[in-house]
C-alpha cells in the first residue's frame, strides 16, 4: 500500500518544486506578517485587529545564522535509535521583504562547513522522517548555489 505524504504541521507550507512556499498569514489592517501562522488575532499591539489571510512567504532569504545538532535530539524529534546519529545543520534565514527570521533544517548533505552568514538560501520541500504508513514532510533550506 502506498504511503501517504503528510506535512509534519498542517498549514505551514504547500506546493511542489518551484511552487513550494512557507505559509504565514498577514493582517488585512496593519499588514503584519506572521509565521508560524496566526489565524485568530493580529499580535501587533498597535493594530485594532483585522482579518488574517494566508500569505505565502518569500521563497528566498539570507542566512542569519546557522548551527548543527551533533547529538541526537530528544523526543518528540523522531529518530531510529538503532541507526548511528547523523548530524544535520539548522539554518535561521532572514526574509528581506517580510523582515523576519525563520529557522529550518538544511537539506541533507549540507553541513555547517558549506554555510556562511549572508548566503542566499531557498525553501524547498523535504522529508523529516518516514514510518510504515507515512512520509512526514517538512521544509528545508538549501543554498541557492547547490543543485537540486
Amino acid at each position: 500500500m502506498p504511503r501517504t505524504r503528510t506535512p509534519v504541521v498542517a498549514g505551514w507550507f504547500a506546493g511542489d518544486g518551484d511552487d513550494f512556499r512557507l505559509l504565514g498569514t498577514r493582517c488585512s489592517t496593519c499588514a503584519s506578517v506572521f509565521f508560524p501562522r496566526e489565524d485568530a488575532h493580529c499580535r501587533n499591539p498597535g493594530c485594532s485587529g483585522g482579518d488574517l489571510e494566508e500569505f505565502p512567504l518569500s521563497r528566498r532569504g539570507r542566512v542569519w545564522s546557522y548551527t548543527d545538532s551533533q547529538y541526537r535530539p530528544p523526543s518528540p524529534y523522531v529518530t531510529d535509535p538503532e541507526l548511528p546519529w547523523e548530524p544535520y545543520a539548522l539554518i535561521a534565514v532572514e526574509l528581506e521583504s517580510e523582515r523576519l527570521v525563520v529557522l529550518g533544517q538544511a537539506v541533507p548533505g549540507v553541513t555547517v562547513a558549506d554555510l556562511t552568514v549572508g548566503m542566499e538560501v531557498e525553501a524547498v520541500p523535504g522529508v523529516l522522517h518516514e514510518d510504515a504508513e507515512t512520509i512526514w514532510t517538512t521544509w528545508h533550506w538549501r543554498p541557492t548555489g547547490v543543485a537540486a
Partner: protein
Amino acid sequence: MTDEVAVLGVGMHPWGKWGRGFVEYGVAAARAALADAGLEWRDIGSIVGADTVRGGYPGYVAGATFAKALGWQGARVTSVYAACASGAQAVNTARAQILAGLADVVLVVGADAAPKGFFRPAGGDRPDDPDWLRFRVLGATNPAYFGLYARRRMAVHGDTPQDFAQVKVKNAALGALNPYARYRKPVTAEEVAASAVVADPLRLLDICATSDGGAALVLAGMEFARRHGVTDPVRIRAVSTVTPRYPNTVLDLPDIATDSAAAVPPEGTFRESIARAAYEEAGIGPEDLSFAEVYDLSTALELQWYEDLGLCGQGDAAKLLREGSTALGGRIPVNTSGGLASFGEAVPAQAIAQVCELTWQLRGGAGDRQVAGARAGIAANQGLFGHGSAVVAVR
C-alpha cells in the same frame, strides 16, 4: 523610584547531580536563609515558591510544597512559574507584598532536580506548543539556539571560539572559589577546545549543564529590618520583569521564527529592554555597577549580555573580556559566582542564586572571589516565552 526591600538572609543547597528530590534542596536552602537572617520559620508571614516543571504536581505548587516540608504554619503562600525567570518573579512577588504592606517578611525559595542530558518538552502531542514544535519539527535543542547566537556574533562582531573559551576559563576560575558551585576545577582554553562540538560553533564546555540545586532568600521591609537590628542591609532596589515589545526581532527560545518587522519598526532588543527597565527603576546606570551576574547559558551568551547590560558598546564585548575588565579585579567583574558555567542550570533556583551572590558580594562576604568595595550589582536573566528578569541590589 520604587521603595527598597531588605535582603535579611540568603541560603543555597550546593549545585550538583545529587539524585534526590527538589523539595530537599529547597528546604535546605530555606533553612540556611532563615539561619542567615536570624529568623525562625514561624516568623515568616509569606512564602513564595518558584515552580519547577520537573517534579510533578508538587513542582507546580512549589510554594505550598516547601511550606508543607518546613511545617505548615499558616503563612500566605504563592507559587510562580516563568521558566528561567521564575526566581525573579518570586523575588518580585515577595517585594510587591512587602511594599503593599501585605507581609513584613517573606521567604523566597526555588529548587530543581534536573534530568540527564537535554531539556525536553512535556509529554504528549501538543502541536500548538512552540516548545513541543521546535523539538518535533526541527530537533532544535537549547544548545542549537545557543549555537545560532554564537555564530551570529562571530559573523557580525568578529568574536572567535577562543573568546568564547576565555569566558569559560574566567568563570571556571571563579567557580573554583565558590563552595556552592557544581564544577570547582579551573578549566584551560585547551580543555575547552578539546571538548566535543555540541552545536557548532559551541563545544561541550561552552554550554551550561543542567543541575540539581536550591536557593532561598529572606526579604523584609526596611522597617522590619531596623526592628530586627539590621541597620545597613543589602537592599533590592529594582526588579525588572518586562515582556518584549512587538516586534521581537531576535530569534528567541523556543520560537521557530521571529516577529516580522515589516509593518512596525523594532525598538532595540528584548534583552536590552530588560536591563533598561531595571536601571530606570533603580535610578542608576551601568556605570554605577560594581559587578554583574548574567545568565551564561553559553559562553557566547555571556558576551551578549555585556552589551545588552550596557557594560560596553554593541560589538565590544570580546574586547571587554580580552582586556580583563570582566575578570575579578577588573573594572566590572561578571559572574563572580562562577556563573552557569560553574553551576549548571537549576531553572527555578538560578535567578535566586544570582541574588545570593549579589548579597554576599555587597556584604563583603564573598571570600576569595570578593569584589573590592562592591556597592551595586545587577543580576540579569531571560525566561523562555518572553519573561524578562533582572534584579538590582545595592548597599
